[in-house]
């Protein structure tokens, strides 16, 4: 049995409603001073299951993965980011405060997802290579790690800026959170490096050029330089204020996020290829 587009749309809508619920739960927790880890984790698990079902159904129906259109990039993006943050926060309690930042961000992506065309476009022949998989998977891992690092850095900035007990509860173990920010950021850097290499191999096989300085490639390089520069700056200026490091992590994520999801402003399908 093949999942219909209408059912897929309903799954997406329910997921977006759940992301709204996660955001409200997080803000309610912040205001009331009560931790909201468990209900948020349950909601995220639901989002992952529903979006996973939507992607699987679409994959079976269209006979191709969600690699091409803006809708597919957003759909797989929200799914992979929710899944990665859920897994990381289950394994690493020190990043759990980050739900406060990830929930509204995923909600925005989800709302955007509901506003774009769901119609599938067939993959060109040049896309049928394992390097596309390597490129996409490493890209998802990169953004997931970067999101977790950024969310933790952001709640540390918030808790550092606020003086109340409520904000302090966001990061009950600041030392452990601080260490995890850099572990996750470093993991993101490795994944991003591999994504660049895999993307170059794929582009060479698909378009004949391993590097063409198109907007996506240029901004991916800029992101890599910001990631590497941030790690280098931390090693160079050992007395750099903690908050400055967090701001750099935030900047790196913003540039990465705009590179991933902002390029559609230049081209409605970044990897569509030419007729």
């Amino acid at each position, binding site marked *: 049995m093949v999942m219909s587009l209408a059912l897929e749309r309903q799954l997406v809508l329910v997921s977006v409603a759940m992301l709204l619920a996660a955001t409200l739960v997080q803000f309610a927790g912040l205001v009331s001073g*009560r*931790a909201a*880890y*468990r209900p948020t984790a349950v909601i995220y698990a639901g989002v992952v299951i529903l979006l996973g079902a939507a992607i699987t159904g679409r994959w079976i129906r269209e006979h191709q993965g969600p690699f091409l259109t803006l809708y597919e990039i957003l759909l797989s993006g929200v799914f992979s980011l929710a899944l990665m943050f859920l897994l990381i926060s289950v394994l690493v*309690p*020190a990043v*759990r405060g980050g739900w406060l930042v990830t929930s509204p961000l995923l909600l925005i992506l989800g709302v955007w997802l509901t506003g774009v065309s769901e119609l599938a*476009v*067939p993959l*060109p*022949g*040049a896309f*049928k*290579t394992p390097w596309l998989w390597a490129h996409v998977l490493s890209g998802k891992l990169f953004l997931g790690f970067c999101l977790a690092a950024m969310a933790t850095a952001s709640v540390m900035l918030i808790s550092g800026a606020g003086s109340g007990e409520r904000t302090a*509860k966001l990061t*009950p*173990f600041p*030392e*452990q959170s601080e*260490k*995890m920010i*850099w*572990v996750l950021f*470093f*993991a993101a*850097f*490795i994944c991003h*490096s*591999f994504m*660049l*290499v895999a993307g170059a*191999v794929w582009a*060479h*096989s*698909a378009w*004949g*050029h*391993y590097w063409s*300085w*198109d*907007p996506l490639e*240029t*901004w991916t*390089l*800029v992101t890599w*330089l*910001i990631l*590497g*520069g941030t790690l*280098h*700056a931390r*090693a*160079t200026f050992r007395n750099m204020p903690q908050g400055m490091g967090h701001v750099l992590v935030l900047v790196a994520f913003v540039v990465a996020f705009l590179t991933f999801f902002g390029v559609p402003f230049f081209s409605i399908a970044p990897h569509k*290829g*030419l*007729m």
Partner: protein
Amino acid sequence: MRVVKLLASLRLTLVGMLALAVLAVVGTRNPAIGTGITIWPIALLTLNLLAALLTNKVFRTQTGLLVFHVGLLLVFACIGLTLLLRYDGHVEIVQGGAFDAGLVETVEQGRWHDNRLGDIELYQGEVRVNYLPGLNRQDTRSSIEYRAASGELRHIMVGDTRTVNIDGYRFAASFNKGFALLLHWKGADGREALGAVHMPSFPSFDWKQVTTWTTPEGQEIELELDFDQRVSDDRADWSFGRTDMPFSVRFTPAGEAQRSLRSGASVELAGGLVQVVDLRVWMAYQIEYLPLLPWMFVAAMLAIVGLTLHFASRVLPASAPAGSRAEEDDYGHVARA
């Protein structure tokens, strides 16, 4: 030694990275500046990296970091040599015709590149490009024959992710292809010539199959290819590559009346007679020569392995807290509060 230490500065690395990021964006947004400007920060970073590898003691104790930076240096070296050795160009070859190095349009050629395109022997066979409804391009199959280094004439099907390497030059079928008119010219002076006129790319310009051809006598003629029925179909599966459809060619010499010809028919022009012989297809190829590309890949992968080693040996252990179990329990208490 003082200069080397200055060059090895970690602060200089940050300046180089910032300059590379800014110039990459500026160079791509301003064609007048171009991306070639990025070579300066790359050169600076290469010198900085080389000096750091020679003087920075951290590389003696942190193997992963050393491997990453050596890999990065090798990538830079490959980029530099590639700029000097590379060749990038494109050519259109008509079905049944031979590759002509004189028709190759060079995009970029490195200073040290020894152009050997003239030695290449390649013949174009049939072409098939399949489309799904909505003119969504699927697989491309272009049949070619080429003379291998052994002297043997080999047949191969290229397209999409399959390319052919001839004497170090990589021929990749591009998305660009179209129809070609095979014309026979018989001059009043008895000279004869057979040649192909390439029409605009198809189906991108299926609405405007018009081009200008200059006869051997120098007369400019506007040629228009007109099919009796629509060739491309955006509502069903369709294949590009057939040439057996009925067609006519409209000849419009400058300032003269238009004449329409079927396949096999002739028309008198200034200084000679031209005959429409046949309809063919042409296929465009991207030609590149990047001898160090496999080594660049190896160097990049070496850098990633180094990063991963450093992560596993230094970053990950440094993050593990002493008595993490107790801390987690404490956290659980806070989370439940």
